[in-house]
């Protein structure tokens, strides 16, 4: 029983991270209609900036976290403005290719600045496991759950209460209508990248204390986040959250009860199964 | 030759076509007219299999078309042109016309890779057909140009050549003279007359009334998804319903 609870907790923790990354994928997909491969490096970058903020600049945890998230959002905007926009192409094949290229470049930059070694990022609060109903839970896991909820709340507020957010949803549902009412496309693209970057960065900041940090840690996390987005129905925000949680649970339960050797494979088996059986995902239109 | 029988199509509750029925007779030119949004493109898309009609049936040479894929319908002998040009800009003009013969080129990937003598022979025959078509549409001297750099009028003719080259039973022409100047329009009209006298059956969607009235044997008028009149050009000219629905709205927008 306490085993099960333990697995559920770790599933929820990982699931929250996948949900954050999946949301990042969805935001860019909804406004630009493309699969943004750079999302995976936003995750890595979040962890790296946190590492630097806390250990090199000796900032306290919360300012460090904010700095890292804002930093990734800024980088994401730069990437969109100077990497993606010059293409002036509306051919999705080419845009997706370009995000692949930019992702490789960004990974190169990260490798150059922070090196190839594995690093340890300190958790937000010291690692004294808390007992909850017989399961021992790291405080970091609680932070992850809490901050993911905060991020989702902020995101909903943005998309349902602010005019920019509402126009971004308009773009998602009908690009031509959005152009007619005169919503500047450039600002929307920039904002969606900033949001995607912030979400990815937050995921990186929160997760790397658990996984350890190196220059391609985001690739695997990002791919799982994408699997979560597909599972929930690509483009659907509630779907991304639900997909992330389900994926996290499936992963930790299968690692706990079946075999941990293939733990990382679960996400992709789920991804391929969803694509075969129900490509629009659980909540897709 | 083509029977359209009570075809209806809805988009999210909005009717785009309701109970449209008419027939395209072999050897004749049937023109489909109507104001913008009348459902002409929807109907063409239903005939060519891009859209599935919600109700009703479409039959071509006594074969049911509903449920067939676009490529199957094309292989039955229905060729079309597109309202907003769909030529292949990177292929040469000649190759563009040759794509119109895809159905006759043999479909086996393996055979194509081996390039057996019979295929080479067939390829030469197809090339002759294509060159003939280019000749008819006065594009021979541009045969090896990439199609993307042709002038607009040439592109329109190229698309027509591509549709005609396979000698289809039925030609669907979606606004063949849209965007052309008077001279180019006269040129295309002449081509269409030649095609008609050669016995081609055509379904023509067009806004250019002069062209429609001089070339069509039968005119079908659509308005808001309904078929409001069918008859010879003279009948249509005198039909009060048409005058009200179509010509009236034309004047209002003019």
């Amino acid at each position, binding site marked *: 029983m306490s085993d099960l609870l333990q697995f559920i907790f770790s599933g929820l923790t990982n699931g929250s991270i996948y949900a954050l990354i999946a949301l990042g994928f969805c935001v860019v997909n909804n406004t630009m209609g493309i*699969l943004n491969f750079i999302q995976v490096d936003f995750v890595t970058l979040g962890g790296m900036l946190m590492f630097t903020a806390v250990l090199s600049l000796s900032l306290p945890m919360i300012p460090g976290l904010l700095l890292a998230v804002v930093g990734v959002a800024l980088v994401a905007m730069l990437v969109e403005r100077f990497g993606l926009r*010059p*293409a002036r*192409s509306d051919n999705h*094949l*080419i845009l*997706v*290719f*370009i995000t*692949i*290229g*930019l*992702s*490789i*470049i*960004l990974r*190169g*930059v990260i*490798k150059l600045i922070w090196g190839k070694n594995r690093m340890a990022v300190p958790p937000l609060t010291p690692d004294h496991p808390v007992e909850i109903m017989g399961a021992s839970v790291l405080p970091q896991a609680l932070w992850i759950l809490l901050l993911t909820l905060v991020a989702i709340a902020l995101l909903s507020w943005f998309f349902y209460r602010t005019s920019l957010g509402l126009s971004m949803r308009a773009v998602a549902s009908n690009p031509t209508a959005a152009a007619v009412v005169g919503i500047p496309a450039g600002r929307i693209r920039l904002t969606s990248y900033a949001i995607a970057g912030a979400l990815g960065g937050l995921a990186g900041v929160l997760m790397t204390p658990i996984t350890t940090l190196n220059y391609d840690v985001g*690739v695997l996390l990002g*791919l799982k986040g994408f*699997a979560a987005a*597909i599972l929930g129905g690509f483009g659907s925000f509630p779907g991304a959250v639900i997909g992330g949680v389900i994926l996290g649970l499936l992963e930790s339960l299968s690692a706990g009860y079946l075999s941990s050797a*293939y733990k*990382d*494979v679960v996400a*992709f*088996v789920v*991804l*391929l199964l969803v*694509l*075969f059986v129900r*490509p629009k995902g659980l909540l897709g239109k | 030759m083509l029977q359209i029988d009570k075809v209806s199509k809805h988009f999210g509750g909005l009717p785009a076509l309701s109970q449209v029925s008419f027939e395209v007779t072999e050897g004749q030119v049937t023109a489909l007219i109507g104001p913008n949004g009348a459902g002409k493109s929807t109907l063409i898309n239903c005939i*060519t299999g*891009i859209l599935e009609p919600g109700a009703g049936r479409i039959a071509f040479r006594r074969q049911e078309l509903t449920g067939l*894929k676009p*490529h199957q319908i*094309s292989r039955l002998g229905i*060729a079309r042109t*597109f309202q907003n040009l769909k030529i*292949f*800009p*990177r*292929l040469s003009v000649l190759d563009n016309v040759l*794509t119109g*013969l*895809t*159905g006759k*080129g043999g*479909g*086996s*990937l393996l055979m*194509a*890779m081996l*390039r057996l003598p019979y295929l080479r022979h067939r*390829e030469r025959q197809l090339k002759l057909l294509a060159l003939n078509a280019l000749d008819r549409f006065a594009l021979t001297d541009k045969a090896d140009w*990439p199609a*993307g*750099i042709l002038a607009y009028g040439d592109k329109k003719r190229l698309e027509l050549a*591509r549709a005609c080259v396979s000698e289809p039973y039925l030609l669907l022409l979606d606004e063949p003279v849209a965007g052309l100047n008077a001279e180019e329009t006269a040129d295309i009209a002449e081509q269409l007359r030649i095609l008609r006298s050669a016995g081609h059956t055509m379904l023509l969607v067009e806004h250019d009334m002069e062209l429609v009235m001089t070339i069509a044997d039968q005119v079908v008028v659509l308005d808001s998804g309904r078929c409001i009149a069918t008859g010879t050009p003279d009948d249509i000219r005198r039909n009060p319903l048409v005058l009200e629905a179509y010509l009236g709205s034309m004047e209002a927008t003019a």
Partner: protein
Amino acid sequence: MTGKEKLLYFLYLHRTGLTVTVLSLALLLYPLYQSNPYTLGLSNLIAINVIVVLGLALFIGFAGQISLGHATFFGMGAYGSAITTVTFGLPPWPAMVLVATLVGLFAWIIGVPILRLSGHYLAMATLGMNFVFHTVLLQWDQVTGGPSGFAGIPLLTLGSFAFDDEVRLHYLLWGFALLFLLLCLNLVRSGVGRGLAALAGEETAAAALGVNTQVAKLKVFILSAVLAAIAGSLFAHTYSYISPDSFDIFVATDFVIMVVIGGMGSVWGVLFGTGTITLLPEWVDFFETYKDFVHGGILVLVLIFLPQGLVAGLVDMVRVRMVLRRQKYASDR
């Protein structure tokens, strides 16, 4: 026509055949001029990559989809050959055919549902597939040898003639590469190839011209998988040792970059793209550090300025220039 014009016309008419002949002769004579095993080894690696990239270029160029998983098919070929020959003791040649067939079947099974998807899910799905494959190679060590790799794969032989040194391998590998190059050239020049080119340009128009778009995409996908599998088998028999790292997602990305440099759907471009990316580490000293910048930078810059890919884009530009100049010349006269 004057004699010169006749000659030019002859050259133009038979340009493909002549280029293939010249290339074959050059490759035939190459070992006489270059006997350094290291250099030959490099050009042999290019030949193997060419086979993979040929199929991938046709797939990306014609189906308009990105596959980031072709290292899977490549690896399936390599491990398939290794396992069937070493573990099950099959002779290499039949094993190669068997493995290629099985990989083709596998591609068919996953291709049917996957190619029905719109958008670029395929890119991620194939990336996921490659990831799963790589993990299986690492974890299932009783069969694959795990991280330490699979050794002792037999050499290819013809009778008593073994392909055991670089010169012999040069003829074997480039023989295969040229064969597949020729087959692919035939394909793009055929009616089927034009149908595929139409598909790449405009899917609705292609369907209206009678191209069965779903089946066409599937066929090219299977073709590309089979070519990658054969290349994998050759790879295994050439080096007698394989390890999972040759088939990870970064290798798959490199294949895609080779395609982009050569150009979408361009058969000749494949030679250039593959050659460039395979040789880059040899030419550029600081390459190891800046590899990512070079690869990513190439991808981004080429696509921003020549969306059709480097070689194909340049060829298109030259074609347009030539036509415009001829037209100007004609109107001046």
